[in-house]
């Protein structure tokens, strides 16, 4: 394992410190317990947005703290959801009185820890709503009752719910916009290589030079099945098809197409995937109205990508376009 780190145990702390220093104009970093808040939090009258989860998915979530997106991010250890004693103070710190929305990726650990923190916050008089993100079509939830994972769609939920909060929507409205995004987005991912969790020291799975994992999440876990390596167009088709089917995308639909890198794949390859996906959508009469290409929700240095499709309506498009000013996503300001 070769990494630009000092000690596996200090990876998250040091990285978050560096993040805070590099973006001191945008965020405040609280240590012990660790969480990151928007510099001007709490924003008077605004619903607060808190997300969090295990580290190792950067820029998610800290990179999305700022105007028009999250008010706070709560990073756990690498691939380990944060604890209520982090989530609670972050929730309190961004509550202006208008209540707080927790955006939670659907993993047992995240759900349980946010649930506890939410109860504790309610006990302290904060209204909390939870938006559960579970956009991963690789998991067939009928059989496997932990349900689908929250993956690429999380970025879109955070951006769009963040815009709704910024324009002044109330607590229930922000949560319901978040849920609307979640029910209109699906994602599927592929890994070309594994990743190495710093404290584990060896790759999360072993993959031969001619094999890839289809249906992976963002935690270096193996996928649903392993297949022989294919070319980019073939892989793109494999990822896109179940997404479109599950979302029942039909001719005339307007969508946002999000090609996300898992951390170790060059941007140039993501655009090759984007090209094919855009082509397939065009062939089916689907209008790609917005796009996002890059490393936004990652699994350390894993090579691979995920494709997310979000069905747009006018309001979602408007909220997507609304100004956002965070370390990792910025426009209109």
């Amino acid at each position, binding site marked *: 394992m070769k990494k630009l780190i000092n000690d596996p145990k200090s990876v998250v702390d040091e990285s978050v410190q560096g993040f805070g220093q590099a973006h001191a104009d945008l965020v405040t970093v609280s240590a012990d317990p660790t969480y990151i808040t928007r510099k001007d939090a709490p924003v008077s009258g605004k619903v607060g947005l808190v997300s969090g989860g*295990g580290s190792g998915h950067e820029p998610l979530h800290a990179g999305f703290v700022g105007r028009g997106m999250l008010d706070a991010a709560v990073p756990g*250890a690498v691939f380990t959801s944060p604890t209520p*004693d982090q989530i609670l103070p972050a929730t309190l710190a961004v509550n202006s009185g208008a209540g707080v929305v927790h955006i939670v990726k659907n993993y*047992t650990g995240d759900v349980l*820890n946010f*649930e506890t923190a939410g109860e504790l916050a309610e006990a302290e008089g904060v209204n909390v709503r939870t938006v559960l993100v579970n956009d991963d079509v690789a998991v067939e939830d009928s059989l496997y009752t*932990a349900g689908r994972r929250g993956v690429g769609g999380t970025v879109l939920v955070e951006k769009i719910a963040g815009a709704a909060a910024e324009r002044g929507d109330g607590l229930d409205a922000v949560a319901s916009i978040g849920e609307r995004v979640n029910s209109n987005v699906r994602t599927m991912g592929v890994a070309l290589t594994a990743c190495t969790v710093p404290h*584990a020291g060896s790759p*999360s799975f072993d993959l031969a030079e001619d094999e890839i994992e289809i249906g992976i999440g963002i*935690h270096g876990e193996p996928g649903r099945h392993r297949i022989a390596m294919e070319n980019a167009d073939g892989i793109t088709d494999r990822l896109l098809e179940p997404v479109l089917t599950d979302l029942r995308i039909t001719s005339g639909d307007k969508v946002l197409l999000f090609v996300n890198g898992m951390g170790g794949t060059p941007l140039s390859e993501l655009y090759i995937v984007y090209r094919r996906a855009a082509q397939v959508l065009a062939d089916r009469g689907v209008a790609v109205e917005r796009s996002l290409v890059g490393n936004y929700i990652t699994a350390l240095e894993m090579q691979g990508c995920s494709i997310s499709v979000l069905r747009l309506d006018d309001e979602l498009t408007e909220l997507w376009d609304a100004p956002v000013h965070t370390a990792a996503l910025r426009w209109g300001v």
Partner: protein
Amino acid sequence: MVLDVNWTVKWLTLCAQAMAEHRVELIELDRAIGDSDHGENMDRGFQAVLDKLSDSPPETPGAALKLTAMTLMSKVGGAAGPLYGTAFLRAATSLGDSPEIAPAAWAGALTAARDGIVARGKAEPGDKTMVDAWTPAAEAASQAAADGSPDALTVLVAAAEAAEAGAVATDPLVARKGRASYLGERSAGHRDPGAASSALILRAAVKAAA
């Protein structure tokens, strides 16, 4: 053997030792069907428990377990943190503030812990989770405690052995809860890491009494 607060602290100390010793093994188990963090999480959590125990030494077994619950809840994270946190909290509650744990109380504590895990995690036996260690452990302890007038060690041993057998029995299962469930059929053939750490915890209880 009396299961008093000294025994409880010794048990928790041996838990911390077991997690440190088996850290890599638990990481490896989690690597196969999860995300490679279980050993790290448990080790971090129980080291914090040790610190807490020496900072504010508890007066009763129940107090020790409550302190453990709160610490695990705030230091472990992931799925295991809240689940073990709830387990220890329910066990603490079931023990109240009595200075000693009678064999039947131990069985009751394990049952409360198991029920807490099920309440939080909604897993059933056979879902390939730590429930598969705690359920047979609680049952074996209850049975041993009901069996005439057993000494504490017998009950502890019954629970530990049942937990160990339960952990081994997760090997062929297909996971239906937790992270391993995302693998579907591919989760079969690997031991559940949470069941394995549960067995270590209950084995430490035996060692503390030995």
